[in-house]
């Protein structure tokens, strides 16, 4: 039974990537670029999901990991002429290093304290972008020079290239999430989320597992931050602000925490909810708020989380 479920899940996830690949040939121009952006942001949400969904670490500071990657790629492009490939690697390294360092300190706390500590670290990172305004241009930010936005000779601002790179990033993050969800480590993370004391009693080094989860999550966020800068050409402090820590939380909650595809579903729905509602009213966040309330009432575990509970127990 488990093997049949695993096959179903593999087919579903490969199928989603295949559909996303095919969509680029039929989507109108506007939705083409939207979907590329959604795939990048969903990759950020998948990184967040490793910490929050699978391990139960409710971080309010993931914007700092995203921004670490964004600024690592952007500043090195701006001041050292590092192009996209180097920028992406630097983004991973920055996200990973920052997450490991923050994790060593913040994981000494749990629950609400962990939320507050991560929030404070993120606020410090946000203010650092202002403090070093001579280089970062603070709130204004800066534009990454076009000639450095090339990956293996392909210009990342070209719509087809951007879509393909966004899809590749999405597929990579999906594969990592899928692998973590199905691995023995993933089961330990779930055990920590459900009952940390019992997991510790069983002999697992809970701190180390949580640190590894947060570090993977931070590295993914850093990679996505670097990719976002390279794909859309802008680096600015807004991406280090609190709202970019809240967004991945909302996307994951909406799609379904601890589901591999939930972050994508949540990001996609939230993106179009904002996009469409803003065409009718400036109170679009009120509509988003009402949608979230409705979601909590009718899909308390998010869309895919509730679907898994009610109809598709094989969903990872």
């Amino acid at each position, binding site marked *: 039974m488990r093997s049949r479920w695993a096959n179903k899940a593999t087919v579903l996830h490969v199928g989603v990537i295949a559909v996303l690949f095919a969509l680029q040939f039929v989507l*109108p*121009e*506007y939705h083409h*670029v*939207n979907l590329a*952006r959604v795939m990048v942001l969903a990759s950020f949400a998948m990184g967040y999901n490793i910490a929050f969904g699978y391990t139960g670490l409710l971080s309010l500071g993931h914007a700092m990991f995203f921004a670490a990657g964004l600024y690592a790629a952007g500043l090195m492009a701006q001041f050292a002429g590092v192009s996209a490939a180097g920028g992406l690697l630097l983004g991973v390294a920055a996200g990973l290093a920052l997450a490991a360092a923050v994790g060593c300190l913040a994981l000494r706390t749990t629950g609400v304290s962990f939320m507050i500590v991560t929030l404070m670290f993120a606020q410090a990172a946000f*203010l650092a972008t*202002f*403090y070093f*305004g*001579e280089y970062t*241009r*603070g*709130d*204004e*930010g*800066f*534009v*990454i020079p*076009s000639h450095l936005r090339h990956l293996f000779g392909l210009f990342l*601002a070209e719509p087809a290239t951007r879509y393909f790179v966004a899809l590749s990033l999405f597929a990579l993050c999906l594969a990592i999430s899928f692998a973590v969800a199905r691995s023995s480590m993933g089961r330990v993370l779930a055990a920590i989320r459900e009952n940390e004391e019992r997991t510790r009693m069983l002999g697992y080094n809970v701190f180390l597992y949580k640190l590894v989860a947060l570090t993977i999550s931070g590295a993914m966020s850093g990679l996505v931050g670097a990719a976002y800068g390279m794909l*859309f*050409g*802008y680096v*600015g*402090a*807004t*991406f280090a602000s609190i709202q970019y820590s809240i967004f991945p939380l909302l996307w994951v909650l909406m799609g379904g925490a601890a589901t591999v595809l939930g972050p994508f579903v949540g990001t996609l729905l939230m993106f179009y909810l*904002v*996009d469409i509602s*803003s*065409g009718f009213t*400036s109170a*679009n*966040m009120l509509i988003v708020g009402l949608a979230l309330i409705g979601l909590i009432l009718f899909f308390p575990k998010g869309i895919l989380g509730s679907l898994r509970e009610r109809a598709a127990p094989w969903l990872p």
Partner: protein
Amino acid sequence: MVESVRPKRKQPVSGVTRRKALVGLGGAAVSGVLPGFVRYAQAQSSAPIKIGFQVHRTGIGASYGRWYDRTTKAAALLINESGGINGRPVEIIAEDDGTDPKRGAEVVEKFATQHGADVAFGTLFSHVVIGSAPRAGELKIPYFVVSEGHHVASGMLNRYTLQPGITDVKSQVQSMAPWVAANLGKKVTMIYPDFAFGHDHRDYFSAAMAAQGGEVIGKIAIPPTESSFFKYFPKIPRGTDVLYHVMVGPGVLTFVKEMGEFFGSKRPEIFGFIDSLEAVNINSPGLEFLEGSYFWEGNPRYAQAQSTKFDAFYRAKVGVDATGASVNDPKDISTYAHMFGCWETLHVIKQGMESAGYRGPGDRAKLIEAVESITDMAASQAHPQGAKLFNGKTHQVFGHQYISQVGGGKLNVVHRTAIEDGFYKDEVDYTSQPL
């Protein structure tokens, strides 16, 4: 050989044969059941020019956005009343950018690829401009900003981004220095927000004062999260002749109130940028301390004795009274020092499109070149703030600045700078970039 000659059929007097009449009637009948044909034929001549308006409806820029919106609508109405652009009406398609650079970029994409807008226009906050401009350049949609940031003329952006309706901060700050040094004092302490906008003021004003033989003896940066300012005032050096302030955001009223409590009746000369108090009544409780102090204004909020007929016309069209408030609500204070930029930019778009013979998105490159070729803009109904000079290489306009003194509950203009006071060396030549 006999040449047969067929007699010519007699032509009707009107020149319309039965056959022609039948063909015409048939055509009319067919076109009657194919209404799309008629609409298409009409669209070639009278389809609206679509202008995507990126507006700060929400977020920190909302108070500016509200007035940018009203000014834009008034300008579009005037343009349409006077025949539109190239005989076509102007349609403003407004989208909220949330004063957010990510959303701003998405909105520009939406204008270009979903709404089919001819140009994008309007935004104020620098981070939204800088976040959106790369996408405008990639989508090759002309992006007319009303931001007053130096980012356009600095060369950071691209050939598709232009600022023809409002001067930039470097020009504004630089042109203040000669008057400040000559009339208020040569030793200045600056208090500014510790982010890019404040840093621009710090750097450009320091250099401009040095050029006037003055000196900035104190530079006090206020962190963006600060809500109380008492601890910063003791840092103001003794011997300060002029206190230069350019605070923005919700803490402005607290800042002024606490400054008044700190100095009491013995204060240095005070010079500020009206950005601090745009959309705020100068007679608000707590602002009494500003009596006698000076402000930069991009356009004088209070109607002056020397105001032009163009200003009076513009004021009436956008619905602002002689005190700078809405004619419908005296408590609703306009962002008068900045919003003229929307009015003037729309008229530059009109001038550029008519000069380029603009017909559709295929002519966007021609539009850019046409705007780049504009130089002089005379004071007129299209340019009520005053005459201007546009630099096609840097995509930046230069114009007069105003210095006003607070007195009797009003802002009274005491000096108008020359356009040349704001000139600086070109930092970019966008015309060398491909279209």
